[in-house]
């Protein structure tokens, strides 16, 4: 039944993706890139869900459901975030987070 690719490989890919996402989230100043980074983080989690479901509970579908759930949340989140980003762009003609600091003072 095992196709030969061990669980660790999945986890390594997911971890790499997760930290790429975190790195991008923390370092980028472009809102679109930050949004893309969050998508990476979410997808790395999806990989984990599916991999664990596949290896630990092969007969069950809980992991799949969670994966679908995350995809749905990610899609709506992307829609909302992009709407906000478009509004910010109209307001500031920029999507650099450092320019968006009017509420700070």
């Amino acid at each position, binding site marked *: 039944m095992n196709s030969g690719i061990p669980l660790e490989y999945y986890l390594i890919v997911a971890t790499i993706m997760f930290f790429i996402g*975190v790195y991008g*989230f*923390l*370092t980028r100043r472009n809102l679109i890139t930050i949004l893309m980074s969050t998508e990476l983080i979410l997808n790395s989690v999806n990989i984990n869900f599916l991999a664990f479901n596949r290896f630990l509970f092969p007969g069950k579908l809980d992991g799949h459901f969670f994966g679908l759930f995350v995809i749905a949340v990610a899609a709506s989140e992307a829609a909302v975030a992009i709407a906000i980003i478009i509004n910010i762009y109209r307001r500031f003609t920029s999507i650099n*987070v*450092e320019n968006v*600091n009017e509420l*700070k003072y």
Partner: protein
Amino acid sequence: MADFGYTVWILIVPFVTFIVLGLFGMKLKARISGLTGTLGLAIVTVLSYATAFRYFLGAGLADGIYQKIIAFNSTWLTLTDRLHIDMGVLLDPISVMMLVVISTVSFMVHIYSLGYMKGEKGFERYYSFLSLFTFSMMGLVVATNIFQMYIFWELVGISSYLLIGFYYSRPSAVAASKKAFIVTRFADMGFLIGILILSFTTKTFDFVTLTDLNGPAITSTGGAVFLGMSVMTWSMILIFVGGAGKSAMFPLHIWLPDAMEGPTPVSALIHAATMVVAGVYLVARMFPVYYFAAPEALQIIAWVGAFSSLFAAVIATTQTDIKRVLAYSTISQIGYMIFSLGVSGYGGPEGLGFMASNWHLFNHAMFKALLFLGAGSVIHAVHSNYMTEMGGLRKHLPITNITFLIACLTIAGLFPLSGFFSKDEILTAAFHHDKVLFAIEYLVAGLTAFYMFRLYFSIFHGHDRQYDHTPHESPATMTVPLIILAIGSVFSGLLPFNRLVTSDGAPFESHIEWSVAGPSLIIALTGIAIAWVMYRKENTLPDRLASTFKHSYKWAYNKFYIDELYLFITKKIIFRRISQPVAWFDRHIVDGTMNGIAWVTQTVSNRIKGLQSGQLQQYGFVFVTGAVALVLFFIYLIK
């Protein structure tokens, strides 16, 4: 009982003119604002006279005794059920008499100032302050309770301060106003403590209750004793300290001569006729309490008054600034009044001193205001305060000359001018009380005549000096008040004070006691004669006398160094020994602690405020780093 409710307008009218002139005076023409103030005072004067006529001619009488009438009263501040501070109008012989005195002198000063202050910067401010003063002084004399009196007492203090410092660009005026305020304020602290003790003992502020012969103040003998005197005596002494400060009694007299820095009409109104007699009025107001509950305090009052009158008279003989001579003369005359209260008894002919004191107060207000206004007229003409720069002015200032002469004769106590009658009654009262005090006052009567005529001869007679420009008589706005006040000085001696203003309200018979009055006339004439010899024609006699009695002359000329003594005590002892260490402690220990706390807070927050940048990504970085660190910690270090 007749309705005297309208008397409240005596207070409201000047207050309204004060507000109007104070707020809108800048927008009015100077002349209009002056006339507004004068018109307000005219209304007050009419009301006061109407009140006095109605009160003395029947409305105040009941069973042959002048009653205390509460014309208006409203509770202002309730402390307890029995102890409350009211604002009201109390009419009795002395307050009605004071209404007449204040309104007359104030009205004269208002008219006079139209001429004297013409063209001065701040003319409307001057009139607004005058209105404030009149309001406060009226409120003081009609006070129904001692606390209302205290409030208005402070108000006259502040108006005096404002008016002394009227020429605020002159440093000496500013210093004088501060001095007057601080000295009187210091004395008022005694007054306030006295009020508190008195109200604590008697549980009332009300004058009618306090002076009631069966009231708590007089019947509550005994009680606690402190340093050999009862608490009542102490409180009455402390109250008198306040009165002595306002009335410039020794040793709190130092502010009055300096207060002459103010405009001359102000000196006439505040520092001669009205405010400075507030102390006399206070003692007269509380007289039954003094007489029955605190006879020791009355003894002190008599001695303070007698000593002040002698002390000030001696200084007055050596001063050369005419306003200062008049200031010391004022102290001396107020000393007379205070002394007269001190030797008075209560009820009927026993209360001769009380009656004489109020009579003298009335006469003194007239002739001393006249003297000051006359001096103002002279200063206006010559532009100098020093009598050494004057002489022979009788040709240039005929009206001022005659009115001034009348005032000098009045204060010297020559028959039949008003000063003669009141001074004679005072001396008679003293004669029956204490022979030593009597002798002092006799001496003062001679000194008074001497220094007043020294002043008169130096200004109006003597060598005719060369002036920069020929002095000319003052305008009618200034001479008319002089004439009116001169008439008042001459005839106020004919008022039947023994029927009107007495210690218990009941009239009594008194007559001139020639065995006392005769010698007092002689001593006054002697004083005038000596002044005539020394100053009528310019000669070297005064200088020779001064050099013969070099040391005593120098002491008197320098006012017995009382000012220097005060300066020594305040600067060398209080400032250096007490204030400076306290200031050091405050600046270094108290402030240091506070500043230290603030410094620590500021430094720490400066260091850590970078953490809160508002950058979400920075927070995220910290969070992730922390999470990773925790994970590594739990995985590898804790097995």
